[in-house]
Structures are given as C-alpha cells and as structure tokens.
C-alpha cells in the first residue's frame, strides 16, 4: 500500500471504530442502566459509559472485547484445541475450499457445456438459475439429512452446500467469458483451420480468464457463507458455524462476534489469494478491457 492510500484507509478504519463504540454504548445502555440502578449507588454518565463498554453479555460487544477474546482464544490454547478459534476456522475453511473446488469444476463444466452445445443453454440454464432461487437455509438441512441417510457425514455435506452457493457465479461469469472472444479472433482461428478443441483451448479459455477470476472472487466468499450455513443444521461441534450456534445458545455475544470476525478474515484471505492467482495467471492485469 502506498502512503497516498494510508490516510483514507486509516480514516475509514477510525470511523468504523468510532461508530462501533457509539453503537455499543447506545445498545448496551438500557441493560447497564438496569444493573446500575439495581446496585443502588448513585451513578454518573461516565459510570454508565464505563459499564456499557465492559459488560459480560453485551447486546453489542466493543471492539476491544472482541479483540481480547480473539487474542485469548488464539494464544491461550493449542491450535488443535476446540477452544482455539483457529481450529474452528480451519474446519470451516476446509469445507469451504472443498466446496469451492467442486464448485469451480461444476461451474466451469456447465459453462463449457452451455457454450459448446447451444441446446444446453435452453435446457440447462433455467435449472441453474432456478437452483439459486431456493434459499440456502431451506435446502441445507435437507442436503444434510439426505446425505446423512446415505452415510455421508462430516466434511462432504458441508462442502456440497458450499458448492451449491458458489458454482452459480462461476457458471454465469464463465459463459460470458467463453463468449467474450471477438468475432475477428474467431475468424482468425478459422483461417488457421483450427479445430473446435484448439479454438477452445487457445482462444475461448484464455479470453474467459478475466471473467472467471471476477466470478471466483464472488464464489470463494460465497463458499465461506455456504460452509458456515451448513454447520448450523449439522449440529457439529467444530467450525465457525458451530461457534456461532453455541454462542447464541448461551448468550455469549462476544464469542459470536469473535467467530464473525474470524469468518470475515477468512473470506478476505481467500479473496486475496484468488487475486494473487489472477495476477499470476492473467498477464498485464488488463481485465476484460481491451
């Protein structure tokens, strides 16, 4: 990051923190007032603010509470411990990446089919689109139950739900990408009497990469959401979704927010990894512009 960008980024981060603290004071004030009144002493506004920022089960925990919880969890226990958030993040990341991998294969295969065979566009694409109108929250438990019946538990059901969310943007982006080669370059391949497999490999596929990577960034973030959603009905003991669920059972809002922050960090990391791969594979970073 250049120094030119440091200031705006810092200002934005500061604004978010200020808003967060203000929100915490505002949301936690009623409960804090109750507690202070019950204690029976006189209290000032400063007492109230101090109380809202240090509650055990706040409506909205403060950033420092979340940061402390994260720090304790990450440094207080070995990575293999169920009390370490990194362990849960690893479980979720595993399911998300497995689902992402399956989603890439499925999404690219569907797109290739749709582009190479015109009939597939009218017969397949409506189903692809319809699949995304079903809320993932409704379909996730069914997938878990069905796969559980077939004897599949653990990572696979979660990966399939993640895949369900992430193949769609890949298919749509890839179809557009595979069709993005301009007519002149297609004519050119014809003058070389290139076969359709050669045209696909040497022209359509490389032309689609900028579109594919845009889709991959959306898909990898969606795969994290899919994996977390999948962890809710599986009743799993591990994973960020399980942490969210147990946090809400016991009113551990700080724990919930820690898990949320970890989920966000995981998504950011994965999207950044996709961006790095893009920079390595798409020369010049010209994107779709030509």
């Amino acid at each position, binding site marked *: 990051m250049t120094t030119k960008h440091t200031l705006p980024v810092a200002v934005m981060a500061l604004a978010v923190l200020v808003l967060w603290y203000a929100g915490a004071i505002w949301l936690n004030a009623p409960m804090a007032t109750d507690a202070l009144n019950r204690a029976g002493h006189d209290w000032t506004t400063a007492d109230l603010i101090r109380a809202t920022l240090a509650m055990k089960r706040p409506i909205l925990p403060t950033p420092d509470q979340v940061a402390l919880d994260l720090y304790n969890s990450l440094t207080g226990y070995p990575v293999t411990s169920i009390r370490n958030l990194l362990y849960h993040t690893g479980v979720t990341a595993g399911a998300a990446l497995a689902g992402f991998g399956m989603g890439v294969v499925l999404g690219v295969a569907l797109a290739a089919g749709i582009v190479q065979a015109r009939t597939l566009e009218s017969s397949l694409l409506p189903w692809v689109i319809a699949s995304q109108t079903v809320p993932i929250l409704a379909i996730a438990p069914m997938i878990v139950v069905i796969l559980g019946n077939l004897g599949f538990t653990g990572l696979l059901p979660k990966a399939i739900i993640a895949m369900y969310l992430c193949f769609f943007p890949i298919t749509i982006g890839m179809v557009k990408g595979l069709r993005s080669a301009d007519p002149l370059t297609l004519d050119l391949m014809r003058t070389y009497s290139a076969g359709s497999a050669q045209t696909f490999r040497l022209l359509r596929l490389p*032309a689609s990469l900028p579109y594919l990577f845009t889709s991959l960034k959306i898909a990898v973030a969606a795969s994290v959401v899919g994996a977390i959603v999948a962890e809710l009905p599986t009743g799993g003991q591990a994973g960020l979704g399980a942490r969210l669920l147990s946090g809400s059972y016991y009113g551990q809002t700080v724990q919930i927010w820690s898990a949320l922050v970890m989920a966000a960090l995981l998504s950011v990391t994965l999207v950044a990894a996709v961006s790095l791969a893009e920079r390595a594979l798409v020369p010049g970073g010209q994107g779709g512009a030509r």
Partner: protein
Amino acid sequence: MPAAQPAPLTLVPPAADAAPRTIVDVRNLTLTYQTADHPVYALSDVSLSISKGDFISLIGPSGCGKTTLMRVVADLEQPTSGEVTVNGMTPEQARLKRAYGYVFQAPALYPWRTVERNVMLPLEIMGLPRAERQQRAREQLDLVGLSGFERKFPWQLSGGMQQRVSIARALAFNPDLLLMDEPFGALDEITRDHLNLQLTRLWLGTRKTCIFVTHSIAEAVFLSTRIVVMSPRPGRILDVIDCDRDLPRERTLDIRESPEFQRIAHRVREGLMEGHSYDD
C-alpha cells in the same frame, strides 16, 4: 485509357514466370444475403483471375462487396452461386491446407500473449516443434522491423506496430497467398506511408501473391500490380487497371508524384465516381 508506352523508370525485374500460374480464380460469383425485408446483393456476377506474384487491390466505396469477395476466397463466407478456386482447390480445401494468411482490419492480437507468442500462434496450431516456432517468429518479426519487441504485450505497442505484428503472424507459416482487409485503415497518414513502403518491399522480397482491400486510391496505386475497382448495390467489378506496365515493380514514395501514377489514380477515381450513385 492508359497509353501503351513503356515505363521510363528504373529497373523492371525480368519476367521470371513466362506463363504465370493462376492462384485465385473467381467465376460468375454471386452472393446474396437474405434479410428480413429484402435480399441484399453483396456480390453480383463477379469474375476475376489472379496470377502468382500479383498484388491485387480491391477498391470501392463501403458496401461494394470487396471485403465479402475476399472472405469468400478465404472460405469465411459461402457464395450463393459461382465458382471459386484457390490453388486449384475449393476455398474450403485451401483453408484446411492453410493456403493463405489473412490480415484483418484490426490487429486481432491476443492480449494475453506476448508479441512473439502471438506470431507463434498459427505454428502452434499446426503442431510445429517449439524451437522452430520461436525461430520462425523471430524471423518474421525481424522482417516487419519489430526485433526487440518479442517479449512485449500487444497493448504496449502502437497501432501501427500491432498491425505489423499481425502481418508477421500471417506470414509466419509461409503461405503463398496473403489476404489483407484494410490493414492500415485505422492508421494515420504518415504511419500508413511507412507501412506501405515496408509492405511493398516485403512483397518484392517474398514474391507472395497478395489481395489487398483498401479505401485509399493512393495506397492502391502505390502497392498494386492490378487494381480492381468495385461498385455497390449490387457489388460488382467496374474496371480492372493494370499498373505493372506503367509503374516499376520496385517503388518508392516519390513515385506518387510521377505522371504515370497520377494518371492511374485519375482512372481509379473516375471508376469510383462512375460506380457511385448519389441518390442515397
């Protein structure tokens, strides 16, 4: 009509081919597009014979079918009726045998490939070994004056350089026939002059048969051995002008000031005006 006087200018190369071989033969070619309301007559009864080593320019206003004619020769369009042979084969057979190189209006370079790998593309499709691909690409880039730009990407080059890369790419697999569709149409006058000079040298050096589509009279006269003047609605041939008799094969830019050049240009212009209907 051009006077039959001998060319007074510099060395005319001896006629090496006593009986020049016909490379492209077009007979009674008609091509009609069916549109929703009425048919469009892109080409009507066009006949043309092109010999080995010819440089033929197709000139005419928009819609006269000059690009269509070349696309038929390249098997990129199918004629409604008439016969076309390329090297004695049908256009499709010729295309499958990679008998020609095609240069489009736009460079049509692949932005994800370096200049060198763009030139190597046809060789890759033909399955040449890597070392030979690279060697041929270097030779062709040298021929169009782009040595040292092998590792650049297309967007790092100017428009004229990009078009030169696309010419190198068309030459890479050494086809006998070169089809060029307004390759310099989008370039400025100075660049165009420069590339015309390079192209005429290239043509003299390689002895390839060229078909060249253009809007520019000066360009057509400067480059061609024969100029085919076409007119629109329906697309047809109005006049075929032989420049070889009055202009030397080896040409420099100052030839454009000569009376022979002016006379041929005048005849081309007259042909174009005759074919141009001002009713639309």
